[in-house]
Structure formats: C-alpha cells, structure tokens
C-alpha cells in the first residue's frame, strides 16, 4: 500500500540509526567522515587511477616542481622526485600502502583482540586474568622498539612491520572488550537471556555484541590513527617499506636529502600523512561524541 507522508510521522530508529543521525548533525565529524571515505576509495582504486607508474621514473623529468610553479608540468601534477617518478602517482599508491595497510592491521588486531577479550570475560579467576594480561607485556614496549626487534629477528620488510603493529594494538582491544562485556553481563537482559537457556556464546553474539560494537568502533579509529603513524614512521626509518615501494614514510625519507632544492618531495607525503590521521581522528571523535549524546537522551 503506497503511502505519502501527509502526517508528521514519528520516526523511531534503532540504536545504530540514532548514532548515525547524531553523527550526521555534527559538521566536523561529517567532514572527517567524507575525507575518510575518500581515502578508502583512493586506497582501493588508486592503483587504477594513478596517471603514471610509481616505481618507474622518466629520467628526463627529474625534480620537476608541482604544476602550480612556473617550471612545473601539468602532466606531473605534483612534481617528480629525484628519479623522475610522479609524486601524485606515488602518493596514490602510497594510500593503499599506508592507509590501506593500517585499516587491515586494525581489522586483524580487532578480531584477535575481541576474541581473546570475550573469552577472558566469559571465564573467571586465573584463566580470565591470564588471558587479560598475558599480552600486556607488549604494551610496555614502544611500538618502534618492538618493530626494530622483530626486524632484527626476521629482517626488514613491510610484512614484518605489519606484524609488529598488529601485536602492539591487540592488548588495547582485549582490555576494552573485556571491560565492555563484563559491564554488559551485569545487566538484567543478559540474565534474562541466560535464564532462557542460551549458551554463553549465543548470549555473547546476540545480546552483548550489538551493544558494544559502537564502543569498539570508537577504539578502532583511535588505533587506526596510531597505526598510520607507526607504519609511516617505520617506513621513514627504513625498517618497513623497502625501496622502491611508494609508502608515505619511505617517500618522505627519500626526499629528506633534497629538502632545500625540492621541498615538495618532503611536504607532500607529510601532508598526506597529516590528512589521513586528522580524518581518522575526526571520525573517531564523532563516534565517541555521538555515543555520549545518545546515552544522554
């Protein structure tokens, strides 16, 4: 039956929709969110859209400044580096490396952390404590140091940095999941579920997870900005992405020697890192702010 909206209908959304509607009303969060989506799209389609190859350079176009300078060339929009590689293409490929990898890193550590955290919350006593704290020793080691250690053992490479950053992020997710699940367990509806005869996993999946997903998402965005910075830093130090991979930190390190003659090779990757970290942080802040407002209603 087709119905036109003649009357002012009362709209009662689900808790997720409520969160989304509050999020939509904050302009700063929406700006951050659109930048985030832009980066995600770039990370997926960047390799297809980049005008030039990021690794092969044209040796006759070395160190061209960006197109808005008088010496610049419009087909190399953001200039070239010392080997004639187009900066724009390098940055676009770099998005899928730095940003995309950080996304995957957060996803892996989220899944592992949530599983261990839920197990820790379901058990009690020694087992629970053990699961909660056995990865805490990693929290005490700075991520860079851990990466250096892993690189020293396994050798440099992007996959090794990924392992290092994953290891560092897992304990945070364990703690936050365990705390959230324990808090939910105290609520009456979980008791009602248990009395219905539901197994603990069923309770976890149907009753508890829908209520803690938003908190975990807030934590995930914070972890992602840390991951972006870690991957870029390790790339900068030469421990992560190796030449000639166009990862942002590595690109920045490359340009450092030429800073006085070709500053764009330094500030462009730097701006890219800044942009992605700010976008991620704004999305995270928006989620946390919306969560707080939704609780107040």
């Amino acid at each position, binding site marked *: 039956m087709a119905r036109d909206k003649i009357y002012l209908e009362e709209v*009662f*959304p*689900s*808790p*997720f929709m409520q969160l989304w509607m509050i999020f939509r009303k904050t302009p700063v969060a929406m700006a951050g969110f659109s930048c985030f989506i832009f980066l995600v799209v770039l990370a997926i389609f960047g390799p297809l859209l980049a005008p030039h190859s990021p690794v092969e350079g044209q040796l006759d176009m070395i160190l061209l400044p960006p197109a808005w300078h008088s010496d610049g060339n419009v087909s190399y929009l953001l200039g070239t580096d010392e080997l004639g590689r187009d900066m724009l293409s390098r940055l676009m490929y770099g998005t899928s490396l730095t940003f995309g990898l950080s996304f995957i890193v957060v996803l892996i550590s989220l899944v592992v952390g949530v599983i261990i955290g839920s197990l820790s919350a379901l058990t009690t006593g020694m087992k629970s404590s053990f699961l909660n704290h056995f990865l805490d020793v990693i929290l005490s080691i700075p991520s860079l140091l851990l990466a250096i250690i892993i690189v020293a053992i396994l050798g440099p490479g992007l996959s090794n940095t990924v392992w290092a950053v994953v290891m560092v992020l897992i304990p945070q997710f364990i703690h936050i999941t365990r705390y959230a699940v324990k808090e939910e367990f105290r*609520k*009456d*509806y979980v*008791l*009602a*579920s*248990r*009395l*219905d*005869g*539901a197994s603990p996993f*069923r309770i976890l999946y*149907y*009753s508890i997870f*829908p*209520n803690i997903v938003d908190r975990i998402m807030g934590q995930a965005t914070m972890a992602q900005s840390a991951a972006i910075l870690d991957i870029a830093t390790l790339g900068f130090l030469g421990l992560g992405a190796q030449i000639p991979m166009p990862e942002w930190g590595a690109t920045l390190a490359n340009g450092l020697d030429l800073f006085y003659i070709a500053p764009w090779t330094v500030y462009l990757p730097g701006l890219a890192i800044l942009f992605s970290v700010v976008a991620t942080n704004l999305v995270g802040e928006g989620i946390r702010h919306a969560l707080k407002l939704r609780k107040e209603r």
Partner: protein
Amino acid sequence: MAELLKVEGLTKSYQSKGFWFNKTQPPILDSVSFAVKAHKTLAIIGKTGSGKSSLAKILVGAESATSGQIYLNGQALKAGSYQHRCQHIRMIFQDSGTTLNPSLTIQQLLDEPLKINTPFDEKKRTELIRQTLQKVGLLGDHMNFYPHMFSGGQKQRISLARAIILQPQVIILDEALASLDPSLRSQMINLLLDLQQQMGLAYILISHNMGIIRHFSDDIMVLSEGKVVETGKTLDVMANPQHQVTQKLMMNQNFQLRSKKNR
C-alpha cells in the same frame, strides 16, 4: 489439586574464602520450605536482606542453593539445567528499563527463548509471538519496534510476554509492580489475573505493597533473616499476625488504613 512447585529445606550460606574469612555469617536462606498450587498466588514478604531476592533467584535457576531440593510436578530440579527449568518457571524483574536489550527489536527478543527451546520454524514462531503480544494487550505490529519506544507500563507487558511465551507453570514476580504508577499497576494486576485464569499459572509475588498482596494473593509467607517465620492464608495472617516480625509489618499497613477510617 496436586502441588505444582514444592520446595524443601532450601539453604544458602555464604561461601567462605579461606582462612581469612573467620566471621560466621548467618546463612542467606535457612531451611525454607513451601508449596504452590496451580491457579494460586503465594506472596513472600520481609524486610530487605531477609533473603527474598535470593530465594527468587534460586527458584528460577540464576543461583544455586547450598542444600535443599526443588520439586516441580514431583520431579526434582537440578541446578544449572536452564533449558528444562525455563519452560516451567519464569521470572519478571523489577526494573523494566534494563531487562530489555536496547539493540534488539521485540521480535528478536521474544524469538530467542523460542529458538533455543522449541523446534518451531520461523513462520510458527512469528505467529506465536503475535499471539502472545495480543494476549498481553499490545498490538502484533509492536514486534518491529525497539524497547526505547515504549513506556514503562508497556515494557512490563513485554517482560510479561517474554515470561509467558514458553507456556510456563510458575511465574515469579520480583517486585515487578513496584515501579509502576497506580493506574498502570491496576491494569497489570487485571492482566495477571486474567492470565492466571486462562493458563492456570501459579504466581510467586515478592512485594512490599500490602494492598496488592491483600488483593492478589491466596497464601502468604513471611521471611526474616533467611528463615520462614510465618505462613498461612493471606486474610488470616493479615487479620491476626502471630509472629513479631509479621506484626510489625502489618502494623504499618493497618496504621494507614485504620487512621483513614477514623477521619
């Protein structure tokens, strides 16, 4: 009429944690025994700390007793076997705001006990949910709403729907009517009375409000510090309380009633 639920010598004591816990605490429940028949309501009263909530939790299976037996239709119930127990004994909590999961629709909420305990397919389950909602006075369409869209009285009705959907025989009302406004309370009482008639339920009512107890219950049991101090038919006990604790509880109620008669 055969006894539906029989409890014998239920005791629950604090679990001492090793050597440091030297103080002897009195047990939470001390040899509590009673029986409930179908179509009847048993009211349990007592001060806070007298063990009423622990008794309710033990009956429904959320906690286990240190000793004692619970017989349902002659069969002994084992602790921890929720699946068998939940089909016969259900509970309605006090605070309706936190007993409903805010992220699930009513349909999902009521589907859960059905999915776990009955072999019905989806169509039959939806139909059963719709019928149950209509029985408690809500519309069938309400199953698509979220809990925060309902008022307090409606949330208690949903809790009641969740309790009766498995066709139980005993329902425990743990202060379920205390937080409602008086007019909603009367509506809820009428609904409970109707359901008792239709489904042959036995209620165990834990409450402070003597007016409801007088109207709603057949038998009454007074708990004090874990022990049963007085039992009997409600009207008899309320007219002639024997034990000191009962007398104190009744005096408060009668004080209000008697002084009004003198106005």
